[in-house]
């Protein structure tokens, strides 16, 4: 390659890099402006327009719990319970510890048509599950990293003190921090695995017949209504096999539900 070409190539790379970075920065400002506009529409009671604006922001590929939360609120005010619950669930997935999101979600769930009794897990599993569900994936990641760093620090101290008279303190610290780190790590791994392998949907149609197979000619097993949450077991074409918390399962059209 000609040596004189290299500065030009470098300049081209810099320009290309700026070309990708600058629009992102500009888009971030634009998105925040649109978010503020949508919030203003909501405050003025123009819920449909606000929802449309929030949806437009989502088209940029942005995922944010506040955005989903506000969008859920707008749909809720429009009495669209299904989309409202779908967006509250998405917000809750990103920020399970957020109290307002959780309370709005609970309130919207209380309006569901379909009710089913799910037996609560015994003590202390219920507490553990509640604590586990209130911690977000990111918080869990931060906790794991901090514990890992502490364990690494104790390990360093142990190595440096090896052969000296008092190596017990770093050793105990290392053992405790490693124990905690392993516990959090297992939980984090389970969380990530669950996110990757388990998918849930919210029913968006007013009423959906759940059938015994993936097709309109299959037997109707039962009917679910707008807002109900179900887990996807498998999918085939335009049909999803879903299971409910009470164990019932069947097939629904893909278009009748939204994936959380």
């Amino acid at each position: 390659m000609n040596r004189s070409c290299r500065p030009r190539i470098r300049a081209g790379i810099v320009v290309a890099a700026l070309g990708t970075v600058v629009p992102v920065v500009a888009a971030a400002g634009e998105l925040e402006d649109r978010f503020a506009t949508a919030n203003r529409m909501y405050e003025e009671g123009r819920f449909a327009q606000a929802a449309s604006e929030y949806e437009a922001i989502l088209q940029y590929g942005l995922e944010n719990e506040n955005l989903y939360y506000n969008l859920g609120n707008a749909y809720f005010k429009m009495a669209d319970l299904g989309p409202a619950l779908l967006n509250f669930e998405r917000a809750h997935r990103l920020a399970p510890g957020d109290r307002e999101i959780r309370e709005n979600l609970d309130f919207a769930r209380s309006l569901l048509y379909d009710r089913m009794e799910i037996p609560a897990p015994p003590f202390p599993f219920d507490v553990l599950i509640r604590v586990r569900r209130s911690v977000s994936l990111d918080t869990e990641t931060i906790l794991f990293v901090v514990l890992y760093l502490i364990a690494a620090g104790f390990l360093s101290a142990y190595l440096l003190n090896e052969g000296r008279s008092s190596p017990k303190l770093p050793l105990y610290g290392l053992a405790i921090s490693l124990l905690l780190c392993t516990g959090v790590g297992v939980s984090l791994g389970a969380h990530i695995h669950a996110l990757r392998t388990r998918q849930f949907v919210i029913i968006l149609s007013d009423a959906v017949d759940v059938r015994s197979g993936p097709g309109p000619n299959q037997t109707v097993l039962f009917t679910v209504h707008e807002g109900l949450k179900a887990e996807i077991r498998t999918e085939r074409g335009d049909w999803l096999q879903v299971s409910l918390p009470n164990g019932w399962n069947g097939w629904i059209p893909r278009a009748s539900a939204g994936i959380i």
Partner: protein
Amino acid sequence: MKRLRRTAGIGVLVLAVAPPTPAADLEALMFADRDQVRLDEEFELTIEVRGADAGDAQAPDLFSLKDVQVLGYPAVNSRYQWIDGHASFTKSFRYTVMADKEGEITIPPVTVRVGDREVTTAGLSIRVAAGRSGGGRAGGRQRSEGGMPEIVRARAEVDKAEVFIGEQLTVHFLILTPREIRGLEILQQPEFPGFWVEEIPQDPDGDIRRVRRDGSSFIEYTVMKRALFPGRTGELVIEPVIFSVTIPRGGSDPPDSMFFESRQTLHRRSDRLTVKVKPLPAARRPEDFRGAVGTFRVSVDAHPRQILVNDAVSFQVVVQGNGNLSTLEPPLVEVPPEIRRYDPRITEALTAGEAGVGGRKTWEFVLVPRVAGRHTIPPVRMTFFDPERAEYRTVRSAPVVITAAPGDLAGDAGLEGAGGGEMVERGRDIHFIKTTRSRLRDRSRPLYRHPATVLALLLPAAGNVGLFLFLRHRRQATANRHLIRRRRAWRRARWRLENAERDLAAGPAGVFDFVAGAVTGFVADKFDLPPSSLTGEQVSALLTGAGVPAPLVRELRACLEACDAARFGRDRGAIEPRGLMDRVRRSLARIERHL
């Protein structure tokens, strides 16, 4: 006399032979049963097709002809002939028609479809004289012998010639006759392309009245009425209706008419009407306008209004008024989100009369409150276009309050929660939105996949591995230094003894220091200890502990004591240094083999 003239007229055929057509074996003719007619006189117009395939000819559409009215469907006649060994078919279509204007009228060439071919007649001219009724366009073949002309008219009348899209108009189809009709048949039903049609029922006793038109007295029969709602803008056409009317023949002898009424049947066609349909004004059109045109009012009702949570409430929205209620979209019903609304059951009670179509349409919703409290259903509003005022209007109902009690309903007092300053929940709602701008952070990539997290995990691990390797290396290096010192102990001891021998040439003063240093240095090197810290006892103890034979240890201890005696004792000159050095050299050499 007149009958003779008419009979003679029938015999006069005005033939117009068509020029050769592309279908060489086919020819088409058009002719009338007379060459001169009166304006109010029916006559017959015949289209005849000749040729081998004439049997496939289809009746041409003459309803669009100008200057003549076609009063019914054609009479079809087919004929087969064998002339000079050749077969020939003739198919004729005979229409009853009536001229529309006086003077010379020309009927343009008519095209007849024969299978997949077409054959065209020539045009036809007919002279039309004024009618007997003095220019009125009605009449028939039969004339009363008396002074009163037998005028029979068919008319179509609309109450509005120009309407907005969706606005209601009414069309009446009328028969006007000088005397009561004895029979009526509709030969061609009306068509209303572009209109939504609602039938207006007829009066069972007959819709008959006596009217005066163009100075003459008629009996007016309203044959049918329709309410029309235009579905598109522009000029819409109401197609004519063809009637067959039977009336008593006028001028019969009174004795005969008392027992044998003579009747005649006439064909009449109503006019083709055009209605101009205007679009609705775009200016000031409300956002919630959903196409309703007319005049309406809206009301709501709910029952029961005090219920338990999850009980059903029947909520009725009623729209009453004039307009096309059948196609009316439901009004805007905004239900609070804590109330579930189910699809409505729709009922209609429509009435169609002279004033048009009206009535009431009801949407009955089932509402189920999911939360306890007082739920206010805001006013239901409906926006429509009022064609009379030519403006959009919005009407609203009153709001409705539904009170839902939790659990068992313990009387109305419990519902209100009254008494004693007790706090009562007036309603529930979701939390408000989050409006902080800086919170809009992209969370599409979870933190565990962030490079910083990976670095935070990798760097400490790498640091600890590096630390471990470093410490191990240092330990190994230290261990190697001890080994080297130990291995070099004998060599360093010999070096010190050689130095002592060199010093001996200068004088014996410092020789014993060197010899003692060689012994303690040898032991210190062997055991990696500082040489200055060793005493004779320590040397003995170290060597004994290392498994050196006791005689050798004693010999070396004796050498050390000799050195000490030579350095610090009174008899320092009695010890011969060279011999001591040899003893020390031999002892160290032997000890070296044991360490």
